[in-house]
């Protein structure tokens, strides 16, 4: 998951929490010793020093089975550092703060935001996302000879064009850093086999209606690739084209070459989540 996406979502959430509860004087979130997001009132150096102090406890915490939370009650307020979905949320409350209200708000809001961001942006450069590299045309043609008889032989010209693209063109830039774009919709589709002599092994075929929906949503933005995710959480990124064969249209299917099926460890009939990669 791209940390920038988290940072944007979490910073907004922290700011909202501080707006809603003025008695929350400082907030920040860190992971692996690095600040991921902080409220406007929180000084970065202070946050860094807090993380260092917290890490000192963490180093000794094997004894208690690992550290989940630290709550320090001071004469003028309270500091709480709590683990949430692998992130550590630090909140500083003044003595006047309604702790029950603040804790309820924080313990519901932050994990919800983290889960939402994870759902909406399941892949990025930081992930173990597998990108299917296109193969040279000759090698591909040899492979296709042994592929199933379910070949869609009506589209050879277009397929050939796809295989001659340069590698540079195929490396789509990451789009996770564009928070102002609408979140890419996730569509669940049933896998159908796709094979044939000239069918590229790095391209799936998706219903035209779904692609139109994406184009309507993003207007001028280029969508050249999709992220695929199985129910087991395996992901890959590949190119896509629309389904031409009318008998497969609007059936909620995705036609997938064998190579991508192997990458995702899925087979015909299984479900896969598809999300456009917006440039």
């Amino acid at each position, binding site marked *: 998951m791209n940390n920038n996406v988290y940072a944007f979502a979490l910073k907004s959430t922290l700011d909202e929490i501080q707006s809603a509860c003025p008695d929350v*004087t*400082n907030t920040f979130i860190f992971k692996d010793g690095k600040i991921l997001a902080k409220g406007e009132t929180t000084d970065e150096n*202070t946050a860094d*020093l*807090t993380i260092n*102090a*917290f890490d*000192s*406890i963490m*180093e*000794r*915490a094997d*004894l*208690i*089975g*690992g*550290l*989940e*939370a*630290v*709550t*320090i*009650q*001071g*004469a*003028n*307020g*309270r*500091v709480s550092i709590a683990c949430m979905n692998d992130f550590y949320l630090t909140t*500083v409350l003044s003595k006047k703060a309604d702790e029950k209200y603040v804790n309820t708000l924080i313990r519901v809001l932050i994990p919800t935001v983290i889960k939402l961001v994870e759902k909406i942006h399941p892949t990025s450069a930081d992930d173990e996302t597998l990108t299917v590299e296109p193969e040279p045309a000759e090698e591909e043609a040899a492979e296709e000879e042994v592929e199933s008889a379910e070949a869609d032989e009506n589209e050879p010209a277009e397929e050939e064009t796809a295989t001659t693209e340069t590698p540079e063109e195929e490396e789509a830039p990451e789009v996770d850093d564009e928070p102002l774009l609408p979140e890419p919709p996730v569509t669940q589709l049933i896998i159908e086999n796709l094979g044939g002599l000239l069918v590229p092994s790095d391209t799936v075929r998706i219903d035209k209606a779904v692609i139109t929906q994406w184009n309507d949503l993003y207007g001028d933005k280029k969508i050249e690739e999709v992220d695929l995710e199985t129910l087991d959480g395996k992901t890959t990124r590949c190119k896509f084209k629309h389904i031409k064969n009318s008998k497969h249209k609007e059936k909620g299917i995705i036609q997938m070459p064998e190579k991508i099926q192997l990458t995702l460890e899925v087979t015909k009939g299984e479900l896969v989540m598809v999300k456009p990669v917006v440039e």
Partner: protein
Amino acid sequence: MVKQKRSIHETAEPVIVDDVTSSEEDQVFTDLSKNLAEIRKTEGVVGYILRSTTAATIDLKEPEKIVEYAILSSQVLDSSREISELFELGDVESTLIEGKEINALCLVIGENKIGIFMEKNADHADILKKVSP
């Protein structure tokens, strides 16, 4: 007048390392020792460490881990003080650390540093009330 006493048992009995003169401070230490001995009987409490500048009382379920528990509680108090200073929270009244298996309540009363270790289901708020009424 200085009296020196040192007794270390390998059982779960309290270990007393005492090197004190009679004073008001010692009285606080003695009272805390008694108080903690009572708290130790509470369900879910697995042990405690009480340290003054000159003496210590330790009663732990796992006596072989005395040093580790002592270092942990000491580190908790040091880090708590640092964090409290950073956010200008004043004197640290108590610190609760929640582990995956055990929770620890650490606090300072006068010159005495206390670490109480308990199972996750133990009522730390109740224990805090008992130790610092």
